């Protein structure tokens, strides 16, 4: 049994220590908004926040989350920056298949939490770990700028 703080709530999960946070969230806590894409931190679909930092949950064992706060896409509607990012995503109509977008939004939100006015180069650096096979990149870039300006 491990005690976790997921989206502000304490939860006890009966999982092995080496289970990645991704699978604990999806298969045990039944929070399926966080996606599996590659299993080796190559695509970013599994991005969540651990104490506010964007991490790839597919390679981070659940033991690393003990005593820390896990925040997922399901919580972004209650996060000031998350709200702005989601509103920008909606305004620019970013999504296509949508599968990578939870991870994209989590990475974008983490970026804006530390960089209130990211340049294109900042966006490239922060977002190049998140693959979108539909190629929504130009719209993601525009949406991040849009969210930054709304938050300013």
């Amino acid at each position: 049994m491990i005690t976790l703080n997921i989206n502000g709530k304490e939860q006890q999960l009966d999982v092995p220590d080496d289970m990645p946070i991704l699978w604990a969230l999806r298969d045990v806590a039944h929070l399926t908004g966080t996606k599996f894409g590659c299993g080796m931190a190559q695509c970013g679909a599994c991005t969540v926040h651990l104490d506010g930092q964007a991490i790839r949950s597919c390679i981070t064992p659940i033991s690393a989350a003990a005593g820390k706060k896990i925040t997922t896409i399901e919580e972004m509607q209650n996060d000031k920056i998350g709200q702005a990012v989601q509103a920008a995503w909606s305004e620019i109509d970013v999504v296509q298949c949508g599968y990578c977008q939870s991870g994209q939004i989590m990475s974008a939100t983490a970026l804006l939490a530390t960089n209130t006015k990211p340049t294109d180069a900042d966006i490239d650096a922060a977002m190049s770990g998140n693959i979108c096979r539909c190629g929504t990149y130009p719209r993601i870039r525009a949406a991040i700028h849009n969210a930054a300006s709304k938050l300013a």
Partner: protein
Amino acid sequence: MNAPLNTPLNISRRTFIKAGALVVGGLVIAFSIPHAKRFLMPGSAADTTADAAKDAAKLPTPNAYLRIGTDNTITVMLAHSEMGQGIWTTLPMLIAEELDADWSKIKVEHASAAPEYIHTAYGIQITGGSSTTWSEFDRYRQAGALTRALLISAAAEKLGVSADSLKTENGFVISGDNKISYGDLAEAAAKLETPKAITLKEPKDWKIIGKATKRLDGPEKINGTAIFGQDIQFDGLMTAMVARSPVFGGTVKSFDATAAKQIKGVRQVVQVPTGVAVIADNYWAAKKGREALKVDWDLGENASLDSKALLAEYKKMAATTGLIAAKAGDNKTAMAKAEKFVEAEYALPYLAHSPMEPLNCSVKIEKDGCEIWTGTQMQGTDQTAAAKILGLKPEQVKIHTLFLGGGFGRRANPAADFVSEAVQVAKAAGVPVKTVWSREDDVKGGYYRPMFVHKAKIALDANGMPSAWEHVAVGQSIMLGTPFEAFQIKDGIDTTSVEGTADSPYLKNIPNYQISLHTAKTKVPVLWWRSVGHSHTAFVMESLIDELAHTAKKDPLEYRRALLKGHPRHLAALNLAAEKADWDKPLPKGVFRGIAVHESFGSFVAQIAEVSVNEGEVKVHRMVSAIDCGLAVNPDSLTAQIESSISFGLGAAMQSEITFKDGMVEQSNFNDYQVMRMGNMPKVEVYIVQSTEKMGGVGEPGLPPVAPAVTNAIFAATGKRIRTLPIGNQLA
């Protein structure tokens, strides 16, 4: 969209709309629009209005559904799958337009697998060929128009007024100052006889069609609640991973599951036709169980497969003439007379689709039926395959289509590979199972865009224009051995292997040409990959045209204009792109342009790339695209698809390839199967040709001209002609 837009439709009894099937609290319209029972690509020779109409009259079938709830919701059932291309929004737009629906009340569902949802042109239930919007343009509008007529009749009866005195607006039937909501009329309307003819709106009266409309699936895809196949969970559903042969066609000799069964959460290890399945409580346990599993494989006849050797073999084959796909004049005489030639050999690799959502399929088998939850582009084929495995009738297999986390062709498998395997696993396990592929399984799992070699020798006349064109292509057939073989392979030639070459518009203005094909018998599973044959033929044709233009010392745009005389839609796209990219104006120092234009799936797309090359590193700064697809039903969705095609096509051209050594795929995940990422994505501008021509597709046609536009720009920048993809480090 063969009929003029505003033709009143006379609908005969046998092809007619069946209304009146009442479901709880609402109206169901089942409507029947004839379909041609063939598998065709738009624009193919047999795809003529006359043929379609002839078949149509013979084959009436009820086709799709629309439901109006007493709460005024309008639920549109999609005969096609949403995989990012936006039909979750575009098809409802068609219904809402004719129905005068309240857009905020529209809900959408994927339809089940059923004959009613068979493609209007392809004769099977499929989402592919960039065909959804044009193939449903009449059917979904008619559904809306018929429903509206029924609601008006119901209102007329209720109010005791003539139907002619009524109008409709935003979900209401209006009579003077009175208005009745569609929901309040639904039950009465369901009892009425359907009209014998309907008149669709004239384009000038459209309020929704042609207007940029936001995606209806946007909200759930940005808050994590959208349900993809991967997200299906219910009590008792186990997770399986299958250990498959590391070599295509290999089989299990024996296996030892002792260590696998010791992993906590692993419940069963069972053999299935494709390998050995580890069934566990969750993905992590299944993965660890599979890692602990020992399988002794008989690798079979492909154990020495080597893509370098294969490429050499293809190049050898390309030196001889294959089966003739297109021919005119007398190449031999023309070549003998010519003095100037361009000779070139092009090679393109195997490519994986690698949609973001790895393949998965959940199966629950019961005594007299089976339920399947998955993201698929071919429900009917999957249903038939599952029924056969289980000894059921197809209608006993219920397919629930969830959102597809990308498809690009991989989820339209004539062999129903990932669905069949999941059914086998659930059957062997005796419990409901979700079979999940890892990314490595996906990259190594086959069904690739086939590797191709093209070899061409082109003679130029005194004016620098081509006078004879000799062209040989070598590659595997996608259609061979599939149910589509009968329709797509003609005289030994898979039409998808030569689409874009044998029917090239350039050839029409060249007196002598010969296009031939060697179909390689390689045993690598291949499949349609976004834009199918055009994904290699456009690269070759548009590169060759560029080679000719440079050899003739002519501007590549002007050269194309000269060769495309009599092809107004190519020219419209080409000219619009050139105008918007300021083709005639200089670029910043070190930046160079390349251009390409190509027709595929009934649409015409020009791409202009702005590229710089520094110390061997290629940077694509900007892509300017122009498309003529006929009517753009949702222009923003069209723009998104062109952006998407540029990302997909450019990523592949720059870095992607699947190679084999000792029978095994050398790539495994996104670390070594590289695709487009944010930092490499250029700025994209998309321009739409205002067109009233026949509708084409938009999901794929943007892709084919991307790679040649970029490599033509690289030639302008460096003088080096890229004839092998991916570009990789060829300039280093």
